[in-house]
């Protein structure tokens, strides 16, 4: 894939590009982009970051970059890939800026006065029916996603949540197709382990 000027402009930090005065058509185009992609961008940002405040920040920053580089984005260009890649990169930047404490893996044992402890996931032993409750399932999935490294998480979000094909994911993330496959394979192994009760409940549900 060739790097166009527009892509470079989009990837550049915001200080490097200032928004010129746009014509009515150009503004309408930006509106169209917002209309079309905001929900997807926000959803991806939310699933990556796991909270509303960061999801807002990330999506807003992504669209601000589109706005500033609007004139360099050719009409009909595959903006989708750029936008999702920007969100992905912005998220990784965000992680770098955050203090280390926020980065610790949910998998890592916690040091407590009573020795090492592993975090408990939603207690479904106390409430077995919870495995069928949507709210409970959503929380467990988001928590399980948070355990994955950002690279693995992004692949899962694009594939299983946003429904992209492997080739599209490879284009968005600029990685080889084989990398998409192997990341997805690894990510799913971790998720399987984390979500076992829910997966089993779902399978049981089919047989009912």
């Amino acid at each position, binding site marked *: 894939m060739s790097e166009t000027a527009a892509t470079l402009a989009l990837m550049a930090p915001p200080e490097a590009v200032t928004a010129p005065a746009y014509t009515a058509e150009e503004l309408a185009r930006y509106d169209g982009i*917002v209309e079309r992609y905001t929900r997807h961008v926000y*959803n991806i940002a939310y699933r990556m970051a796991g909270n509303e405040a960061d999801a*807002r920040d990330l999506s*807003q920053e992504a*669209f601000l970059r589109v706005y500033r580089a609007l004139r360099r984005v050719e009409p009909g260009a595959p903006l989708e890939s750029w936008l999702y890649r920007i969100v992905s990169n912005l998220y990784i930047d965000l992680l770098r800026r955050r203090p280390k404490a926020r980065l610790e893996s949910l998998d890592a044992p916690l040091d407590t006065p009573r020795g090492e402890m592993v975090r408990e996931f939603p207690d479904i032993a106390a409430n077995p029916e919870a495995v069928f409750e*949507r709210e409970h399932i959503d929380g467990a999935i988001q928590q399980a996603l948070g355990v994955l490294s950002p690279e693995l998480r992004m692949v899962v979000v694009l594939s299983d949540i946003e429904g992209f094909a492997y080739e599209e994911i490879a284009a968005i993330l600029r990685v080889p197709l084989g990398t998409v496959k192997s990341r997805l*394979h690894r990510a799913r192994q971790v998720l399987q382990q984390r979500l076992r009760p829910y997966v089993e409940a779902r*399978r049981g549900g089919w047989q009912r």
Partner: protein
Amino acid sequence: MNHHRAGRLLSAYVDSELTAAETRAVQEHLLDCADCRNAYENLRAMRELLAGLPPAEPPAEFWAGIRGPVLRARAAAAGAPEEGLRAAWAFARERLRSWVVVRRPGWALAAVLVVLALAALPLVKGTVDRLHATEIGVDLYVHDHALQMGSTPLVDRAYVGLVAGDAELVIAGETPRPAGDAAR
């Protein structure tokens, strides 16, 4: 196809992302291998769980933030400064909100008021003290001069008492009189 390789391909098989030849090979293996069939069903169930996640809805005020630059530009072009200001305000508020998240506005307001009160306290107190000091200062000045004048023989003592404006004032050389006499 051996078990290990089939296991690695299952994830892509679930997504229908294998070549025709790979797909056939995995299908054949699945017929023979109960473990892989189980793993396949698990993968399928999990994919459905993830696909069933409802999309995260952006909050309503988020749209204003994203549209901010356009609304502003449009308003500026149309020569409607209030519209532009409003859009700018919405945009700025949304930007600010991402930095400052006030989870308990009531407590925040109370905290701000306490801080303001603490900051204002010395100011108010200082002003009161200063006013007080000026009052006392004038009194002392008048007293002093009245006393000095009282010691000169040619001055009307009743007048001095009047000027001093203080019934309790004891003019030098006189025995204290009951209140009010100095004015008479």
